[in-house]
């Protein structure tokens, strides 16, 4: 693959590029789903191609092709240079990139069981058995299960001499029970909604989820929700389960700290950010106990934001985003780092595939564990609501005002978990919410959740991000707003 990459770099240089980098990528994916005891989707795909990014006349150009011959990539590189020169017709300043060393390396994400080597019959049998367990519960009207596996090889080469091969194995799985009764549809998912849990792991992730044992429980909860009390509308104490808190981090911390948003580069689509440059090292983002990092390093865990190098050839790093409640850092790339006085990119350029330009992306944006056991947290809460498993999520285009709803809630009274609540929701303003955090559970309760479906960029790219979180408590939160009436 490096021969083709080098041919592309050579052509770009001859055509006038002052810098070029190339990603050859080979993506393989398998999707399995079941619905109501029948196989739903059963599909496999592979895609291989090359994406060429060049800097010419001080402006960017990018072209991609799946024609993997020397002639094909040379034409593609020439097209990229031509596009860059067209970009220069409407440039303001020449692009300046923070320096970065050249690296020659190879890395593979660790996994124990290659899911593409596990017999399909075994995988389907597990899904169908979980499906059957859910259908065995009276009142369940729809059952769904899924597994997804991806193997991604990428070969990065740059005109400054980097040659980096990375192989990532990604696994995801989940189950859902839905119940329609009267005028209400209720749903429960495990281990998370919208496709379940996803991680940079092999088939061992599926085995660790124990889908079969959880299937009857979530089916029973989906049915029981119909008879549960409606979540009240009030201002009060909220405890968020880990997966819901992971999405809260994603939306109200991860996106606002993306420097391309801050600088207006996403103003037309994904939006901008309230975290203007004057806020760095000054804003009290959260309470003292809140520490958030963006950590792509393998030692942080096997998350969807874990890698050895980003797609700009920058080594994985850990960046303090919030430290003891103070706003400390953005996610940057080589082009934007110098604009905020950094000497180096924070290593967050990522691409969905060979035919997409790398853009600034979350890596693993995680809330570091606190000190509480979950039992102590509940026992310490006199009057509150525990909410688990996301049902809807929405936040404004500058990331101030959000509203989330979850599949299920539990009343907490006098330090004990009480009755089930249906249709739970909460809302708030980002910094007010994070400043109201007064308890975070310890590492034993911490999970690196995977968000496989983060959309950003034009053309749109979908990326997986990781979010470590443990159950946490927030005070004076607006609860029940999604179903409020004036």
């Amino acid at each position, binding site marked *: 693959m490096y021969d083709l990459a080098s041919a592309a770099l050579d052509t770009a240089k001859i055509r006038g590029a002052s810098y070029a980098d190339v990603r050859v990528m080979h993506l393989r994916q398998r999707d399995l789903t079941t619905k*109501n005891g029948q*196989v*739903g*989707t*059963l599909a*496999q*795909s*592979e*895609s291989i191609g090359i994406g060429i990014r060049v800097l010419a006349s001080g*402006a*960017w*150009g*990018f*072209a*991609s092709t*799946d*024609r993997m011959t020397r*002639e*094909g990539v040379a*034409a593609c590189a*020439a097209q990229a240079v*031509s596009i*860059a020169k*067209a*970009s220069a*017709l*409407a440039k*303001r300043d020449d692009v300046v990139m923070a320096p970065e060393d050249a690296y020659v390396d190879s890395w593979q994400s660790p996994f124990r069981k290659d899911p593409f080597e596990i*017999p*399909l*019959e075994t995988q389907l049998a597990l899904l169908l058995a979980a499906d059957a367990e859910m259908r065995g519960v009276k009142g369940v009207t*729809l059952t*769904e299960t899924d597994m997804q596996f991806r193997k991604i090889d990428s070969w990065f080469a740059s005109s400054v001499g980097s040659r980096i091969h990375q192989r990532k194995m990604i696994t995801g799985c989940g189950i859902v029970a*839905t119940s329609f009764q009267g*005028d209400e*549809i209720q*749903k429960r998912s495990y281990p998370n909604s919208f496709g379940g849990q996803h991680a940079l792991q092999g088939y061992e992730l599926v085995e660790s989820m124990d889908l079969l044992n959880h299937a009857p429980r979530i089916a029973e909860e989906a049915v029981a929700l119909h008879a549960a009390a409606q979540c009240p509308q009030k201002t009060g104490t909220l405890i968020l389960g880990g997966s819901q808190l992971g999405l809260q981090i994603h939306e109200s911390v991860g996106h606002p700290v993306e420097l391309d948003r801050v*600088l*207006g*580069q996403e*103003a*037309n*689509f994904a*939006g901008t950010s*309230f975290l203007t440059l004057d806020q760095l090292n000054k804003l009290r983002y959260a309470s003292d106990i809140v520490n958030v990092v963006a950590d792509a390093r393998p030692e942080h865990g096997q998350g969807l934001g874990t890698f050895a190098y980003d797609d700009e050839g920058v080594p994985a790093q850990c960046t303090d985003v919030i430290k003891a409640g103070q706003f400390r850092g953005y996610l940057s790339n080589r082009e934007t780092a110098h604009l905020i006085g950094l000497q180096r990119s924070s290593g967050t350029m990522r691409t969905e595939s060979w*035919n997409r330009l790398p853009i600034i992306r979350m890596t693993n944006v995680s809330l570091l564990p606190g000190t509480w056991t979950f039992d102590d947290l509940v026992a310490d809460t006199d009057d509150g609501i525990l909410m688990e498993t996301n049902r809807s999520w*929405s*936040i*404004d*285009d500058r990331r*101030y*005002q959000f*509203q989330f709803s979850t599949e299920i809630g539990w009343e907490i009274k006098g330090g004990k978990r009480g009755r089930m609540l249906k249709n739970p929701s909460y*809302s708030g303003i980002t910094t007010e919410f994070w400043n109201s955090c007064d308890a975070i559970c310890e590492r034993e309760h911490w999970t690196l959740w995977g968000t496989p479906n983060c959309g950003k960029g034009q*053309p749109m790219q979908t990326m997986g991000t990781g979010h470590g979180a443990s159950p946490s408590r927030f005070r004076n939160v*607006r609860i029940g707003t*999604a*179903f*409020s009436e*004036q």
Partner: protein
Amino acid sequence: MTMTRKSGAAAMPKAGATRELRSIIDTVLRLAKSIGVAETEVHVDETISALTRFANNAIHQNVAEHTVNVSVRTQVDLRTARATTNRIDEDSLRAAIEASLSLAHSQPKNPHLLPLPGKQRCRGVYRFIRKTAALRPEDRARAVRRACDLAVKKGQTAAGIFSSAQTQSAMGNSRGLFTAYRDTHAVFSITMQEDSAASWAKENAADVADIDPQRLAERASEKAHRATDARELAPGRYTVILEPAAVLDLVGFLFYDFAATALQDKRSCLNERMGKHVFGKNISIVDDVFHPLQLGAPYDGEGMPRQRVLLVDRGVPKNLVYSRASAKAVKKKPTGHGFMLPNEYGEAPMNLVFSGGNASLDQMIASTERGLLVTRLWYIREVDPYEKIMTGMTRDGLFLVEKGRVTSAARNFRFNQSILEMLRNVEMLGPAVRATGEEAFEMVVPAMKIRDFHFSEVTKF
């Protein structure tokens, strides 16, 4: 197997002719037959697209891609599965067939699986515009430059995209079905920012000549200026005037509920509601791929011809759309709205056309004692699937209307609003236009004046 892709200098790639796509299909069918596959279906899709992206009054990203995907579905003994590749040499195509077969053999039989359809008669549509296909990066850059120059002149900041694409698709199967389609597509979208305010305009069309980037830039610029000094209003129920993009992005969440499979799965808000007065009498909706403002192939993922379907007649949901399987389950005819198999969702209407009215935006404003004019909506998600309560934000231009005229800008609101209730409360309709937003696929929808729209909270800008 090679396709026509000129390698000359910096020329844009050219799409292969339909006969070349057919040649790939024929190769797959021949290879599949040679290894004894009972039934085979092949889709070939080729896309050549380019997108120029600008922000801070300059181009900052500028991309192009050329992709070909071949997707093979084999069917043996009541089992089926799909394998997709972007390599079109014979060895790779054979590998895709074998991968599909291997997947298919691994599952239990599905007694409801239908044999592949035979030849179909499909009405043609012509939506390929050479001028759009020939658009060059320099053409896009010059248009962007003019829009950015306007922003600089007005003391504003522009961000957006100018894109163009050509796609062609073909599908065939071992029972003799063959059909093909190609189109072009151009999009210009612009956000103008002034101080802390912003506004937005966007259009898309098969013919780039139907898009006037400078007119859109001027519209966004003028609205961004009017959007400054936004007032904070109290949340509550307001009369709203939703511009077509706002209507589109909200009602776009309704139409998966018109899938017969969704009703059979009891996940549709239309369960127990078909044939009842669910919406106002001024709401009628058809799905019509042949409408002059629509784009898209006149056949579905199974190769069935798309039919015009009356979904809502004067407020009453009348008909659903059907794939072959969901139709057979209830002894109906397929309507040509099925997704590629295998899948668990069945089908959906994809070419929606609302019956509009005659009211202009100015007339809607003039008739409003107190209300809000909404440019677009953002981050819309479903809160309640049966009552179809959606949440989301207003964005890029919310304006207070008092005594028949726009009096000021307003800070953005969060809404929690049932679409079903909303479509019972429509007081005025504009002419239906091809609208484009960011949350839903394009449809032909009107601007709407709606009473009692529920805003639950306000944000800080």
